[in-house]
């Protein structure tokens, strides 16, 4: 009979090994899924994980890698802070949308002026948009003890409707006749966020993601707030006796993750996406939850996890084009990864013992 024995402290070795194990298991299960779809599983896995980096057309895909990884990392770093402290902001998708709307609105208000300060103002507006949207669940949690999980998630649907209203109404391109959507910010130099080095996919959002990783690392390892976050997550009681202010912690974690998600949305709408449109959001806010867990809620881990997740996105696109593997299969694949990750986590917290039946 198998029995689990709780470890006094989580195993260090397994903490590093479990994400790798989970990825391996997901590849295995994913391969079975692709086989069930009638595709060659080895070819599919190779197309997703190998070809975009080292294959024949890698020069095209490599640039895309950072474009996708940037927003995922930026959002996940913020979410991880809250998750560590037991504060569950799962509405990053909504905050991402609001950041994009706020940022784009400020930029479009200046159209067609060309000033150096327009883009910085848009960055600030994007962060504020995400922050304000995240403050709704945060303040309701603090004031009325309302469940932040449900409120932040429900606000995603509200934000999506708001996005549609903006694309069809207030922010709609007045010169366009056909499709709904705002002016294309890529064609408005003062408000656009182009690639910094052509072909690399590096834009301001990717730079911001790297800065966020560094700051989060310093915050968690060197700053008192980081210590409070870790303490509140590991032992809420000890945190309360230790003088951690739970209200401030909720507001800080929600606000930070909201602002970072807002920034991600703002950099996306000014860069790769280009405009406010009904189909602007593509689920980064939800995938970032997987990224945060895959990176073990650690900034450096999130950096690596974000790159891997971005790889499944672009590899998935490649597999769609060459093997006709549906996009939804990649989504299921990403969901599977989170399942395996949470499942194998048992190894870092518990020891597995084989005991004889009947011995108490």
């Amino acid at each position, binding site marked *: 009979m198998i029995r689990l024995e709780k470890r006094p402290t989580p195993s260090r070795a397994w903490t590093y090994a479990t994400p790798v194990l989970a990825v391996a298991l997901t590849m295995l299960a994913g391969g079975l899924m692709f086989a069930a779809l009638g595709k060659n599983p080895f070819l599919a896995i190779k197309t997703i994980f190998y070809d975009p980096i080292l294959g024949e057309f890698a020069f095209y895909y490599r640039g895309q890698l950072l474009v996708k990884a940037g927003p995922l990392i930026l959002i996940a770093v913020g979410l991880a802070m809250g998750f560590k402290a037991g504060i569950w902001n799962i509405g990053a998708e909504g905050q991402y949308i609001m950041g994009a709307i706020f940022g784009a609105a400020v930029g479009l208000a200046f159209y067609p002026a060309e000033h150096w300060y327009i883009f910085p103002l848009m960055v600030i507006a994007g962060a504020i948009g995400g922050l304000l949207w995240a403050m709704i669940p945060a303040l*309701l949690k603090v004031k009325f003890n*309302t469940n932040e999980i*449900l409120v932040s*998630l429900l606000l995603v649907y509200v934000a999506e409707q708001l996005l549609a209203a903006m694309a069809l109404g207030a922010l709609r391109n007045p010169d366009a006749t056909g499709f709904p959507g705002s002016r294309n910010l890529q064609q408005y130099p003062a408000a656009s966020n182009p690639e910094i080095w052509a072909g690399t996919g590096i834009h301001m959002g990717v730079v911001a993601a790297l800065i966020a990783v560094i700051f989060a690392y310093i915050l968690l390892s060197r700053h008192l707030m980081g210590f409070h976050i870790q303490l509140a997550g590991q032992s809420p009681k000890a945190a309360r006796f230790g003088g951690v202010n739970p209200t401030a912690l909720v507001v800080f974690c929600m606000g930070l993750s909201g602002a970072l998600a807002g920034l991600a949305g703002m950099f996306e709408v000014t860069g790769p996406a280009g405009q406010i449109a009904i189909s602007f959001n593509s689920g980064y806010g939800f995938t970032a939850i997987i990224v945060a867990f895959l990176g073990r809620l650690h900034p450096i881990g999130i950096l690596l996890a974000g790159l891997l997740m971005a790889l499944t996105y672009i590899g998935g696109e490649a597999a769609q084009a060459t093997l006709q593997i549906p996009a939804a299969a990649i989504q299921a694949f990403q969901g599977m990864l989170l399942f395996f990750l949470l499942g194998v986590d048992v190894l870092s917290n518990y020891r597995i013992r084989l005991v004889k039946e009947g011995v108490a």
Partner: protein
Amino acid sequence: MNLDSINWILLLASLMVASTPILLAAIGELVVERAGVLNLGVEGMMITGAICGFAISVETQSATLGFIAAAIAGAAISMLFGLLTQYLLSNQVATGLALTLFGLGFSALIGQGYIGIKGLSAPNIHIPVISDIPIIGPVLFQHDLMVYVSILLIAATWATLKYTRAGLILRAVGENHEAAHALGYKVIRIRLTAIAFGGACAGLGGAYLSIVRVPQWTEGLTAGAGWIALALVVFASWKPWRVLIGAYIFGGLTVLQLNLQAAGFKIPVEYLSMSPYLITILVLVVMSSGRSRAALNAPAELGRSFHASS
């Protein structure tokens, strides 16, 4: 806008149909939470049930078989959550989210061949005599069978929780799993049963959307209904009949909102469409403020993993 263009009898009649999906999902989640488990994967289970139910009903031309398949599919996918949280002791919040994310992808994957296909039309049953009463007849007694099944399910859940030994054990597990374990009850097995029941109910709720209410398959069909069902359980303070009241109030508001859209109300459609979510948030705030009420009714072990130490 013209309020006269709204047919109020039809509106009231469609209220019960609009409420049934969240009613089914919420009563299942209520049982799960009373057993002390927080499963945030309702949305994922609902949408899995929606596509499985729709696919089977189209293939077999039988709505009944579709609903049965949806219940089985919902229960099966909920067992992923059960396995992870009960045996591998994973975090329930994170695992529930994983279930939702996986369910959305998985349903989109198997639903590919079914986009744009017309579903069957489930027959409405006319209960003799009472369905012919003016106004009350069409409002209450001329619906499809699942509407009445969902109400029976509420009654059965209420009676089981309140009057039977099984219900008492389930509540004991949810209130204090250590004590229940000490008394010799199989905490994990009981919780797995509750999770499977919740999955089956969520599957039925999703299938009701795809087979009866819409009736069609599109990706992301449930559009947050699972999350609203979760909020409904809080609204109901974990009491079965209040789930019914909450679902009908909510369904009524949804139908009213849709009718206002159709009547050309002077507000853009998007703002009306966001109203169900905003109302849900408002209700959550009202129910959770004043910690005396909702917080006291929450099962004590909600969301905590059980690991027998001996």
